[in-house]
């Protein structure tokens, strides 16, 4: 038996902080880490946004999939590209660069099971973004995943 959400507007990665406010300093540090990841210089914000949307889709997080962070759209990420991502037809689509494809493949495997990521998939990410980029990507995927999971969990608790 599953509880349904009591919230008029379900939480997302952007609003989950409201539900976690009772966590005080821990919640603030969680938000600070997320803010730092959004500013890191290795993986572009638009590409992290595509990763967020793909992970949201894999989580069946409907509200998260509808959410758009303003920064990536200002840097040129279009709804057309997002629609292609969400249709599943992105891997061989010329609108996606080789580095975007490398990162999105990695993000999918991370979302399914990080143990299933291959050396070749990690090498493709490193080819474009170096070892620091690979680590930054993994950290970002971890916190994106955490914020989505927490929003789904706390939808039931609020």
């Amino acid at each position, binding site marked *: *038996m599953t509880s349904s959400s009591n919230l008029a507007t379900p939480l997302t990665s952007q609003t989950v902080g409201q539900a976690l406010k009772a966590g005080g*300093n*821990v919640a603030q*540090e969680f938000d600070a*880490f997320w803010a730092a990841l959004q500013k890191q210089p290795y993986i572009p914000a638009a590409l992290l946004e595509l990763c967020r949307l793909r992970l949201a889709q894999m989580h069946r997080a409907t509200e998260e999939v509808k959410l758009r962070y303003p920064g990536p759209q200002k840097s040129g990420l279009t709804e057309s590209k997002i629609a292609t991502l969400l249709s599943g037809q992105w891997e061989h689509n010329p609108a996606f660069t080789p580095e975007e494809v490398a990162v999105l493949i990695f993000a999918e495997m991370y979302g399914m099971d990080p143990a299933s*990521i291959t050396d070749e998939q990690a090498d493709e990410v490193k080819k474009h973004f170096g*070892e620091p980029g690979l680590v930054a990507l*993994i950290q970002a995927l971890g916190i994106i*995943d955490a914020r989505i999971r927490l929003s789904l969990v706390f939808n039931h*608790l609020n």
Partner: protein
Amino acid sequence: MEGKTRAGVPKAVTGNVIRDSSMGLVPETLDNFMGLHDAVWKCGSIGPALIEVIRLRNARTVNCVFCRSVRYDVAKRDGLTEDRVVQIEDGYQDSSLSKKEKLALAFADVYLRDPHSFDPTLIKELRENFTAEQIAHMGLAVGTFNAASKCAVALAGMPESLPVTEIPLPTRNHAPLAAKVA
């Protein structure tokens, strides 16, 4: 899981197991991660033993070899024994773990296995036994540990097994002493 790790480590060695890991290759986020890690362990609303119970449930679910082998000294000082640690497995509901430990594990399992599926009976019991602050802290703890374990797994290179090892909790400003193999 054998083979080479997918990213190196910083050249400078600090003695802090997190700073000296591949996480140290991203200085732009390292201090923030350390701050979050510190805050989770020092939150105060739930003790280190219960935080460690959550951490180990995550470690075993993600199957992070390093995370599974570690025992933080603060949890041991707070009373967590290996006799209790071995009960953090499937079937813990029938173990001799305390009611709060079992509820914390059940909550962690919702996060780890299916965040869409949250039994209303469990929600009621969580609210009866934990404050809103404690529930928020448990959520943030399992989220942080899950991200960290998945980072270790995604970077690969861990051996198939490691001996259980007690280590000092790595904190933001501290380089711990050498590890003790349990």
